[in-house]
């Protein structure tokens, strides 16, 4: 069970979290101005990297907050986490 660093609460067991997909994918400000292809890319295309991955988690059974973290998809090791709107350390 992973130990996940919540930037609000500190390291907590994986059981307290839900995964929320890749980070840094903002909802387009004007969806209507996007082509179908651009909109499909926003909806479905993800990097799915082998290695460091910026992703979102929610500390659902804790502070309830969404936050960002970078995790190595190969080793499952977390590098660090940061609050929404902040830059990674």
């Amino acid at each position, binding site marked *: 069970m992973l130990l996940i660093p919540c930037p609000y609460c500190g390291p907590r067991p994986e059981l307290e979290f839900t995964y929320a997909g890749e980070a840094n994918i903002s909802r387009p400000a004007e969806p209507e101005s996007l082509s179908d292809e651009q909109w499909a890319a926003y909806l479905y295309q993800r990097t799915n990297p082998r290695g460091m991955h910026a992703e979102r988690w929610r500390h659902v059974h804790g502070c309830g907050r*969404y936050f960002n973290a970078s995790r190595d998809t190969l080793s499952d090791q977390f590098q660090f986490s940061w609050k929404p709107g902040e830059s990674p350390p």
Partner: protein
Amino acid sequence: MTGPFRTEIGGRIDRTRRIDFRFDGRLYSGHPGDNLASALLSHGVHLLGRSFKYHRPRGVLGAGSEEPNALVRVGSYESRATPNLRATQVEIHDLLVAESQNRYPSLSFDVGAINDVLSPLFPAGFYYKTFMWPAWGWRRLYEPIIRRMAGLGRAPTAPDADIYAQRYVHCDVLVVGAGPAGLAAARAAAQGGARVLLCDEQSEFGGSLLSEPDTTEAGRNRLAWRAATLATLAASDNVTLLTRSTAFGVFADNFVALVERVTDHLANPEPALPRERLWQVRARQVVLATGAIERPMVFAGNDRPGVMLAGAARTYLHRYGVRTGRRIVLATSADSAYGVAMDLHRAGLTIAAIADVRNEASGPLAAAARAAGLPLRTSTHIAATHGRLRIRGATLARNGTGAREKVACDLLLMSGGYTPTVHLYSQARGTLRFDESLGAFLPGGDTGILQVAGACRGIFATDVAIADGAEAGTVAAARTDPGGAPQPVRTISVPDSGALLAREAPCDRRAFVDFQNDVTTKDLRLAVREGFVSVEHVKRYTTAGMATDQGKTSNINALALVANERRMDMAAVGLTTFRMPYTPVTFGTLAGAARGNLFDPIRQTPIHAWAEDRGAVFEDVGMWKRARYFPAARETMAQAVARECRAVRTGAGLFDASTLGKIEVVGPDAAIFLERMYVNNFRKLAVGRARYGLMLGEDGFVLDDGVIGRLAPDRFHVTTTTGGAPRVLAMMEDYLQTEWPDLRVWLTSTTEEWAVVSIQGPRARDIIAPFVIGIDLAPQAFPHMAVAEGTILGVNLRIFRVSFTGECGFEINVPADYGSDVWHAIMQQGTVFGLTPYGTEAMHVLRAEKGYIIVGQESDGTATPDDLGLGWAIGRGKSDFVGKRSLARAAMRDPSRKQLVGLLTSNGETVLQEGAQIVTAANGNASIGHVTSAYFSTTLGRSMALAMISGGKARMGEKLLAPMLDRTHEVTVAPAMFYDPKGERLYG
């Protein structure tokens, strides 16, 4: 009677006490400290089981958790029986009842042994090849026979009578294994100030210290050192000691699972004690000191009872005071065998021959054996063994020549070198490297949070292992104190051992590699010949390493054979994956208290007790228990539902809607927020009014629905589907926190704050009006989709005029604690109006008559609002909402999409099956849609169905077909609204 093979003195057993136990119905005796294997061996009993596939007689091979052969069923009651336990790990007590497995009628005469004669029929992968024809044969003929003939123990038939506990703990340093390295590591870590947890799978700490002679190479007294170290540990406040506790799994970030066997070794345990306890440990640092397992030699007849690992014989001698035989042949490819030979020789056993396959044996141990006059033959292997239920002799052969020699013996010991027990290290994602001189895979190094010490990393000499463990413990403790002194480092390196891998069985006869799954050298060679390249494939094809012992004694030998067959290096062949559990774990331990009623949380509404009293039949909706219908005396479900539906249509019905999800959305920007989350218009919604809300995903498909009432300019009462509440709240939080953090909105889950009593029907208003204070319920004052706050029976009330039945209806929200009282009062008041409680089944029928959808029943995650006939809900002129952009895609407006329609069967008695496919008469093979809901409607006097049909809206009146199991039914497409299409009753 003391067993005839018991030594006169020595061992860890208490000779002053006798324990009587039963094996296969016979009474045997042993002493405290014995396990089942040692006690039986003390009586000269070697035959303990029959093998998996060939039913070959098998004896004890090892002395611990690596044992592949001696599997027994323990327990005289089905409710307390456990199959497939290793006799080497079952401690004896006065009420122990054990029996052998996989034999009929008896262990010494087993009819299944015919399989051994027929073994040419069962090559590797035989079940893929032999039993292909006829098609029905596998399920009805072959599988039942194979299941009866091949196998391990019999699963217990009664529910487990024991209780199991679970515990979470944190520690600074977890040390796994309490042999010399582990004990030293724990002591050093504790001295470094760390909180230490030390666990070992055995009944007492010490590991190899208990199995080997009194003094080490350096002259240290093993048992004295062990006692002194244990005394230090026991006196330390910061140390927790766990015996009989197996670390069976290592997970991410040093999360380690241990199973502690609490009562199995006791004849009369305290009834309150759990049988086993699962420890879930989060350790800052882990030291693995899990030791090493001896490898068997691969030769023909190496599985006969009386063929044993050399180290095991030494353990039985030193730890249990048992001579495993009288006249001994040793087969070896490693120096370690000579130490064992000397020990047994000193204990008065006859060493008949030592066959070393290596061309020379030059180490100090071999020299000592030579000096003692032991008959040592190099370049010699075992060509055959003799005997049936017990070995009687062995044929020794010179490598490469025809010279043979038959030697009588009653024990044949094997030592193919030691394999470090890297299972847990590998589970922790440590990388392994192959060490040629050791003939074994070794841990590549420490991971920063997990280290390995002692024999587990190839350091076999006791004195060095102790020093190695102490270093690991010191380093681990220092790492948990990052502000402390400079970090110490490990200095000890792994020495050469000079073992030779049994790469090639020197004869072509059948030699066993995996004892538990009966995999032979022939099977492995066949797999390679048939083109299996990856070891993972060879493993699955031959089943080598796939038994309950996970190939603890067989994996390396199997790999060596594959490497040899393919002319490759061991390192290039690689290793199969180590998976948890290290040894089998009971379901009871993993389940803990989560069984029966505690298996899954049960949610009950405040009205549950009333419904139970009333004889309601409940159904599970998510975790909720919901009353499905309330049968009166001798009523069938259909009769009860019909009566409940009639009551709602003609008088009034009372429905417990408390399970509806509820979210309080509050803040100056609440209306803006909801307008973005839902397709509807909320900014223009007046205070005191409610609206049907439809929520989409960004992909444009319907996700949830519910009624949303505006209680104040900045306060909304949002309801969701019963199952959807957590999902909707999570999605709202996601958008609020990460997309629109500028919005001043706060979300609170209020599902369990409110009890919801829904009253529906033409008499609903008359029944509740006397109770409701401060709200005028008259139709003009409180029309359909109105909401207001007031009081009812003196408690706070939020009342919605809403309907999921098509009748005039009210949803009465009161604080959950008062739900039951309010329900009672309304029921009492309603009696004269014929007020009838109704359940979810009637609710389903009533809403289907009106064509109201249920998200997840009519919709399946691919339905748009238009598909469901809900396009009207989309707010006009809204620039954006979640899912809007996707609705603009051409495919979302394709007229051939599946659309919600009604279906009427030509025979009004026929109720279609939900899920039935719909086809056209022109093409009976291509489904154009499916039935989503189907009921018999008492109101209509006939059956009705809702369905999602391709281009359904354009098919009104069309005749289609619904093939079902009994016959194909003709149906006519109709609007998805069977009752009161003008809504006169709803608005009345």
